[in-house]
């Protein structure tokens, strides 16, 4: 199952997010890494240092694009300028698939710059799926949507989050970027069984997996990406790998970022849960 239409029939291994504090090390030392995930919006610029760094990375590494501002779940029309910039970047990186979040974040052209949870209704699923289809048709690259962590649920919801995710990806015929940490965080915040989530999604559509750390507060958990991956999240990762097969996996570490080696070492812990013949495998 690792190579499927939703990740461009690739078999990527374990990657890490490309982050500014690591640029110097990566460009000077050329460490062996299966692949890097970039935040698309950081490189949807017209010129300068960001694109210079990206081109240097692309000379040696495979890169997958991950977006934070497409807002598939917003009721606004898709922004053509955004899509055009994104498509230019897709051509530059040759990303075999791209991902963004199953959320909303803008309305009437005003942006919250947040990944806000959707109202889980059939109408919202239909709108979201339609926008994913439109984006994919324009960008001409497979799309995976990522489940977000959340701290609120709405009265209007008509189904569970995993039912909503399944509804959207089936209607849009797109892939899933399954963020295991986000499921754990949301499960703790809302009191659902994270394994019910993992067991009740279309596993054949999982094109990529995210893992990350989080922070515990008195009454809730925040998805802060500033810690190593916690044991319950690794256990969920092991569970989902049994369902999906070895799948492109990426560690996110966005705040209090330690050395490149430490981040990479943390990511490679995922190998413990992969079948032995997949531990070093990567084709594209």
């Amino acid at each position, binding site marked *: 199952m690792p190579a499927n239409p939703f990740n461009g029939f690739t078999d990527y291994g374990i990657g890490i997010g490309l982050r500014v504090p690591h640029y110097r090390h990566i460009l000077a030392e050329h460490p062996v890494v299966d692949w890097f995930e970039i935040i698309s919006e950081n490189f949807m610029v017209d010129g300068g240092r960001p*694109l210079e760094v990206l081109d240097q990375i692309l000379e040696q590494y495979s890169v997958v694009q991950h977006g934070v501002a497409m807002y598939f779940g917003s009721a606004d029309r898709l922004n053509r300028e955004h899509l055009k910039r994104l498509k230019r970047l897709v051509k530059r990186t040759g990303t075999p698939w791209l991902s963004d979040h199953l959320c909303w974040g803008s309305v*009437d052209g005003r942006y919250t710059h947040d990944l806000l949870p959707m109202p889980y209704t059939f109408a919202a699923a239909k709108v979201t799926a339609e926008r994913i289809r439109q984006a994919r048709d324009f960008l001409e690259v497979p799309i995976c949507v990522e489940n977000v962590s959340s701290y609120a649920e709405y009265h209007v919801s008509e189904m569970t989050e995993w039912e909503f995710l399944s509804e959207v990806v089936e209607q849009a015929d797109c892939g899933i970027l399954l963020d295991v940490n986000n499921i754990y965080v949301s499960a703790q915040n809302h009191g659902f069984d994270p394994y019910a989530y993992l067991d009740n999604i279309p596993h054949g559509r999982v094109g990529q997996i995210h893992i990350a750390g989080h922070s515990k507060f008195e009454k809730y958990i925040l998805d802060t990406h500033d810690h190593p991956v916690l044991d319950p999240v690794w256990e969920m990762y092991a569970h989902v790998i049994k369902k999906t097969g070895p799948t492109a996996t990426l560690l996110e570490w966005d705040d209090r970022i330690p050395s490149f080696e430490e981040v990479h070492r943390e990511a490679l812990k995922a190998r413990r849960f992969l079948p032995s013949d997949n531990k070093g495998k990567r084709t594209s």
Partner: protein
Amino acid sequence: MSSVRSQAELKEFQRQMAGLLFQPLNTAWKTRKKTPGGDDIAAMAASLIKPNDRLSSFERLQIYNRCYWFRVLDSLYDDFPGLLALLGNRKFLKLVTAYLIRHPSESFTLRNLGSRLENFLLAEPEYAGERQQAALDMVRFEWAQIVAFDGPARKPVSAREIQGQHPESLRFGLQPYLTLLALDHAVDHYLLAVKSDETAGLRSAASNTSEKTPIQKSTRRPAAPKKERVYLAVHRYENALFYKRLEPEAFVLLTALKTGLTLESACNKALKLAKPTRKNSAAFQLKLAEWFADWSSLGWLTPYTSDKPKKTKTIL
């Protein structure tokens, strides 16, 4: 709101949620009890958000309300460290909060968040207190650096392209990432004294949460910038950010070229300002040659084009 059963209802739902998220925090960085119009925020939150066994609807809203403000404020703190140092934290926070209430982000990227700050400050100068003019100079200077960092570049003009052309008809463009500034304060020297972290410039986080209040950042506060007329070119060279002081005549010449004047007309403007005597005329000619050699080596001069802005379109 009782249902989301259509795209129109989804939009209305999102409008209501965004209206709550954009509500400014109180001085303790918490969600306010009432909107400026007197509406009860807890009641509004309860109509949209479910409570759970640990958090009320209001408390769940507060998580997002705080994250929104921390994120956008953080972005402006990062982009305008000189303005922060100039105004001090209290005034800066008041200014950028008012700015964000008036001008919420209209771009997919936080990079553009401060694009309207200059105009806001021009319209509402009282937010800068006694340092209005210095604050305006600093905002212009810091925004120019954002443009220089990742603005578009054109291919510099080649000698072959201008060979045989006459100064009376020859026009140049300037690199779009180059900003020319005529300021009344030495904000360049001031910012050098403030800045210590040069790694800023890219936002790389994919996490949507932040629990750090912007005031946790510390910034050096040197003495006020010296009042003096300063002409600056803010640009990049080999993708590193630079700012360069210009002589007044050089500034006039470049500005004239940027507005589309011919080389001859632009040089005449500079010449008029320099008022060279017969004695130092040769020296001015030499200076002109040096400037053009310098600007060419920096790649500032591009083939002339008349730009017309494009409109953003939506699809569906």
